[in-house]
């Protein structure tokens, strides 16, 4: 079976956040509860200032630390494709996986609404979901954490399992520029205007993602955690992606 992976080219990423809003649309995310986010950092003194950014989906790690801490096996590594998914019918909302994820990509949305007034009060759900927006997608697969997030459980990026899992078997890459494949491409990859994202099978020797990783020195974030992400970044040797928060000293007047 495939081991799906993503490559994000930081040299061409424009920091536009289309990946974020496309993910929000495709997966009916609550405003600000971004499975896929773009993180911005800045350092330096005027006029020599660095503004940098890092698009960050779930890494769908090979050794996911979130999976090993789950006391109910609600979150799991799908052997057929390498997705890290959550069974919402098993999740108890203990949030240990959130604590245990080094990449901060898990969401317990029973928190105060990021944007007020709370849109959940406008489109309330009658079946225990967070909300019921008119624009929700047709897909709904709680055993894989797909659809509108219920109350009391944790959710996360599924690598658009509902699209990717339908792809023809044996395809090395899911490239949105190939018309026959575009419906199987994760939303964040499909919309990416500068084509800074690539999605393919890391186990397929012919896949473009593998070639990119090999040729352009693909790196995994926080490799020291041993989680072994299936998301690789290309930075062309540009810069360390994530500066220490210590660099961002809190300014006081």
């Amino acid at each position, binding site marked *: 079976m495939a081991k799906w992976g993503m490559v994000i080219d930081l040299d*061409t990423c424009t920091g536009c956040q289309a990946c974020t809003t496309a993910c929000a649309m495709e997966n009916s995310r609550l405003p*600000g509860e971004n499975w896929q986010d773009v993180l911005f950092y800045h350092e330096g003194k*005027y006029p020599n200032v660095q503004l940098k950014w890092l698009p960050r989906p779930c890494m769908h790690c090979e050794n996911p630390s979130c999976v090993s801490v789950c006391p109910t096996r609600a979150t799991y590594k799908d052997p057929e494709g390498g997705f890290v998914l959550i069974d919402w019918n098993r999740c108890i909302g203990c949030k240990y996986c959130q604590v245990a994820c080094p990449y901060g990509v898990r969401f317990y949305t029973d928190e105060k609404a990021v944007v007020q007034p709370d849109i959940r009060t406008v489109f309330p759900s009658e*079946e225990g979901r967070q909300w019921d927006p008119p624009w929700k997608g047709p*897909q*709904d697969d709680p055993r894989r954490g797909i659809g509108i997030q219920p109350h009391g459980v944790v959710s996360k990026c599924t690598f658009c399992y*509902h699209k990717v899992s339908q792809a023809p078997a044996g395809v090395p890459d899911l490239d949105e520029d190939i018309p026959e494949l575009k419906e199987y491409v994760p939303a964040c990859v*499909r919309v990416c*205007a500068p084509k800074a994202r690539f999605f393919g099978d890391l186990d397929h020797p012919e896949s473009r993602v593998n070639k990119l990783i090999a040729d352009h020195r693909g790196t995994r974030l926080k490799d020291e955690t041993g989680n072994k992400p299936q998301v690789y970044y290309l930075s062309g040797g540009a810069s360390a992606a994530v500066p220490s928060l210590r660099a961002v000293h809190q300014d006081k*007047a």
Partner: protein
Amino acid sequence: MKLLETLINRRRFLKATGAVAGAGVVAGGAGVVPGLTTLSHARSPAPSADTTITKNICHQCPARCGIDVYTTGGRVHAIYGTSDHPISNGKLCPKGPLGAYILYDPDRFKGPMKRTNPSKGRDQDPGFVPISWNEALDMVAERLNGLREREESHRFALLYGRGWGASCAGLLGNFGKLYGSPNVAIGHSSMCSDGSIISKKAVDGIGGYNSYDYKNANMLLMFGAGFLEAFRPYNNNMQVWGYIRGVKVPKTRITAVDVHMNTTLAGSDRALLIKPGTDGALALAIAHVILVEGLWEKAFVGDFGDGVNRFIPGETVDPDSFEEKWVKGLVEWWNAELKDRTPRWAAQVTTLYERDILATAHEFGTTRPAIALYERGAHAHSNGIFNGMAIHTLNALVGSLYAKGGLAYQVGPSYGPLPVNADDYLDDWARAGGWKAQPRIDLKGHPDGYLLANNMMQEIGPNSLQGKPYKLDTIMFYLNNAIWTAPDVKAWEAALKELFVIETSPFPSETAMFADVILPDHTYLERLQDAPTYPFQGWPMTQLRVPAVKPLYDTKYFGDVLIELGKRINGSMGEYYQALDNTENVIRHLAKGFESDPGDNGVNSFESWKEKGVWYKRVYPYRQIDGEFYEWDGQDHARLMSADEVRGALFKTASGKFEIRSGWLEAHADWIAAKTGRDPSRLMFPIWEEPSHPGGGDLYMVTPKVALHAEGRGANLPVAIANMQPTLGGRNTIYIEINPKTARARGIPDGSRVRISSDLGAIEGFCKYYEGVRPDTLVFPMEHGHWAHGRWAKGRKPGHSGEITVNQSDRITGQCSYYTTKVRIERA
């Protein structure tokens, strides 16, 4: 035991609250405590078979990206770029996916309404009551007929913003002509980027937004514009960016000029943080270096007769020694202005380092093809005309005009004619009524106003209020909210209190609060609407919005509202609109033009247009190669054009050349000198002039458009709000960017609430320290401060810059100087 009891108690409690919720008492808080239910696997994980895909065009910016709208079970749930659309190519910018939120915006108007409260003001509830479309249209028609009978038809004005195509804004000109008002319709371009259009017109005679061949350019020099935040077509710009920065060999070099560090500057090779209003000085210095070092494109510009460069800093040159080719007035410009505009001089004016100016000039002068582009940042100042001319002249110096990898202008589509000709329906009043002697309300084209401008929308409110030249009676708005977006909004609010206001937006707005009648439009996913491309690649292209769902509410497409109104106007005008019938009929006739000129994608009819969503032909008719102009001969750009042909099509100046010495300005030198006090012997050249900054403050205030600015609605879309300002982390709050040095000097702590004030008033917001913003400038996105835009927009800070922006315009271009007011900041 206690434990179990707790749980049982809890469960029972939950059941009870569930019952209450079920009874529909309140759609209360964030939801219920999770119960015991296990979710069923009701729906299939795969998109179901009844999903339909309709073609549409995004509405969130001018770019006009083709989109595929996914509808299942009558609900729109996804939007992706159309794969075979030349702008979107299957991709989207961050605004593209917001469409469904706009369609299902809970704050939408549900049908036509009239006002019952005669008092108008920010704190006045209009007391809208629903009425039928017939009642609404009759009410408006009666008013328009009355004006006409009283021979006051000029007192009806129609203002529009983002007009899309021939079936909406395209109908307006005929409406004004038939009805008899010079004020139907007035566009918003002076509040947009006329400074760019008209400064280009001054030198190349065309006056439009350029199309840019980025893919073949090797150097981009960008002044303002926000290439990676806002510049249209944003989506395509980013596709281009990915190509020229990641794939193309050699990698295109990019220098970006702005007043704060944004993603464009961060992604560029060189970021220049320039003092607001001084972009022209930088362009002059670059031109100076190009001339001194002999880097200009000789095949296009011309050269000294003997090939010896005589451009020496500070020294004049004999004009006769230079043989100009496609430019006019180069040496005169050097003598009058450029000889002293050294990088050292510019460094003082712009606060940039001399070494950076030199390096930029060398790069721009030696890398071909190169493009210099600019938009509102550079020209929204009193000296905007000169800043624009200076920057655009750089394109002439390096020979980029109409060249591969350079700039050109947009060509229109092969539309068919309308079913009827308006000229056949002019009655006596329309043909020769008293309205013809009336000036436009905005005094555009009038010696007392803005003789050379295209539009002066920002003047309409103040002019009507003062009765100068007259007071309007009835005003109608289409995709326009000038009462909020114009500077000095208080004058607009006072003006609209006196007028009968017709609003056509489907959404609540500040205009609607002052409206007497609401004739709500469909949202874009419900419309059948054509839209020729905005300037893109130059070659012709036009697109179609196809409704994805039936209109959710009792709304009507603006084009049809206009036609229905027209039918109700007495006399032959009514007959014209009877004949026009409806917008679908209009669009079907437009599409007839494709029958004889099918698009590259095979679109040759209304039906095929609907299916593909776009008609285009990927051939631009002209190209300049090594200083010669060629026309497409069906196979190649091979037919050499004569000088007259060039003048007719490509440089529409008196000389048929790129006039660095602008004949157009020179022809109006007396008027310009009288109104601006400029030296009549120099005002026709791109010169340096200190901008004038009203407002009475000590800091510049710049309010750029950001990537998630969904035109007109971004402030009320929670997903847009949540991601609006990623650079500073403005999750639920947009922050005012302030340099820490500036803040500390005023005792303003990071994150604190601040007040920004000018002579006009004050607004409040929260600030964040940012080293990436100039110490003399405050920056915040132009987005919030709406007071009637919907529940999420309401009261969101910071307040709107328009409240404290002085209404000052460039006297030539008419460009509203949004970024030139100086303000004060203090802790609130």
